[in-house]
């Protein structure tokens, strides 16, 4: 019996350090949780400063479905040993946090620890010092910068050549050649021209392109003594379209023929706008419809209604998903870049046409890159993808 008791005591003594190592206690006397690990604090890359990114590995006890951990507490201080204050309490499973309430060029220290039920928590782990600073250049956009500068130089070079009086050839664009025909038809029939500059606001470049073309179309309309209707989906577009059409009538020497209410606001709602424009088409029966700008699902509803009233239709957009609808339902469609070229093309001004030649030269360069890149990739040379990703 004494032998068994001695063996039991021996086993108890042998296991004591192990038990103490497993069940540590917090300063308050509770059990301690396992802390997270690999805590890193670094300046957030490619930002304007004022933020520090924190990341860590989950505590070993933070396991989905059977975790004892409720979350993580992050504290921050400007001194290493003291002054830590809680800045965030995050749920279990979180491995990162961005601190945006800091000042640039100042040292910060962080600590993170896991918390569980009943107030128990782990020992904290520390990171720092770390300083937030502003990055003034985004190296990931170097390729875009180079391409933009090259393209801009081409455009500026050909504008310069045009300014010197050089005659530049622009290929005919059928859709734009038909603008005059469409307005002429409307004049002969005594019906209005309907112009829709897309459904987006003035912060969309396609809307701006649509408004610039509106200036040219409105001038032709004024010269032909026809009438133009411009129902707008955005108030700001209406305001600018009004000024544009008014100036066009003024330039054509017919300010008296300008009717403010012909350029009107309908609604911001996409399908409400479609319903209203369809109503205008069915009532006014325009002889020529222009759809130039950004369009979404309403493109086909508008174009098919226009087709049903027998209008000659010219559309233009850079939305690839809407182009097939316009191609199917309209007489002429300006595809992508042609929308942006339209204003320059219609003006016929040498400076504007020069920019189109520069744009075409940019296309040639891109085409060359695509061909060279495809050949290099085919033979296993990774140069092109390196250029495109950095």
């Amino acid at each position, binding site marked *: 019996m004494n032998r068994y008791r001695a063996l039991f005591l021996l086993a108890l003594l042998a296991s004591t350090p192990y038990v103490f190592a497993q069940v540590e206690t917090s300063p308050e006397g509770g059990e301690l949780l396992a802390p997270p690990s690999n805590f890193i604090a670094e300046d957030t890359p490619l930002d304007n400063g004022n933020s520090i990114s924190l990341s860590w590995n989950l505590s070993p006890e933070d396991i989905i479905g059977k975790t004892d951990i409720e979350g993580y507490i992050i504290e921050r201080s400007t001194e290493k040993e003291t002054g830590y204050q809680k800045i965030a309490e995050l749920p279990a499973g979180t491995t990162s946090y961005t601190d945006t309430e800091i000042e640039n060029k100042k040292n910060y220290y962080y600590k993170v620890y896991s918390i569980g039920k009943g107030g128990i928590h782990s020992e904290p782990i520390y990171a720092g010092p770390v300083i937030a600073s502003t990055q003034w250049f985004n190296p990931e956009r170097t390729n875009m910068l180079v391409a933009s500068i090259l393209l801009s130089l081409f455009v500026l070079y050909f504008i310069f050549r045009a300014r010197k009086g050089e005659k530049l050839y622009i290929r005919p664009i059928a859709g734009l050649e038909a603008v005059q025909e469409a307005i002429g038809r409307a004049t002969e029939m005594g019906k209005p021209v309907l112009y829709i500059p897309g459904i987006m606001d003035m912060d969309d470049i396609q809307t701006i*392109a649509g408004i610039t073309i509106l200036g040219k179309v409105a001038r032709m309309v004024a010269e032909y003594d026809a009438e133009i209707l411009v129902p707008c989906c955005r108030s*700001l577009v209406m*305001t600018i379209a009004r000024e544009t059409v008014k100036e066009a009538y003024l330039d054509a020497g017919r300010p008296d023929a300008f009717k403010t209410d012909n350029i*009107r606001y309908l609604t911001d709602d996409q399908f409400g706008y479609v319903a209203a424009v369809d109503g205008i088409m069915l009532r006014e029966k325009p002889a020529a419809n222009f759809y130039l700008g950004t369009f979404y699902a309403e493109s086909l509803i508008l174009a098919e209604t226009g087709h049903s009233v027998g209008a000659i239709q010219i559309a233009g957009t850079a939305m690839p998903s809407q182009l097939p609808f316009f*191609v*199917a339902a309209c007489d002429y469609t300006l595809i992508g870049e042609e929308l942006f070229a339209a204003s320059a093309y219609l003006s016929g001004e040498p*400076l504007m046409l020069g*920019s189109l030649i520069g744009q075409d030269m940019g296309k040639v360069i891109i085409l060359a890159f695509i061909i060279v890149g495809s050949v290099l990739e085919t033979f296993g040379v990774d140069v092109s993808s390196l250029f495109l990703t950095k």
Partner: protein
Amino acid sequence: MKQRLPLLITLIVGLTLIVQFFSPGLSFIQERFTNWFLVVIVFAFLLGFLSLVKVNITKIKRRSEDWGYSIPLLIALFTMAIIGIGWGIGEGTIFNWLFMNLMVPMSATMFSLLAFFVASAAYRAFRARNLEAAMLLIAATIVMLGRVPISSAGFLSYLKLDAIANWIMTYPNTVGQRAIMIGAALGVVATSLRIILGIERAYMGEE
């Protein structure tokens, strides 16, 4: 001065926004300009509202064609505005109820018209009048058949229409879309340069 000041503002704002695109340190500029844009939109919205009211009141006064539609429009406009301002627009409000039970179904009705218009437009587009239209017809038929279960049933499964449809969508279709997008991107750069440099002034009403 009346012409030069807007052009100068356009030049400065345009160049500033280009520079900030490449400089993370200046990203706050875009946020600020976006906020200013929102403020401008709010004021422009008042002009839009007044335009809508004026046009429809004039229609009613002159008894223009279909003037009767202007009455429910004005009633709806003012009712929604008064209810929204007076009792809020959040979840559980009358405004929200009217929006969800009137506006949303009406929008859905307009959207559903698309199905019929797709059919009528497709009928015209798919007539094999020339080589391009014939190719479009063949490609569209293969893609349509390849995207429905019948393509893998019976003898049709031997034609591998689903694989051909996927190939058409992955290669020729993607190539075409990317070509349009590259062209459009170049157009955006050239248009932006013309506007920033003051060569393009039609948007300001300047010829």
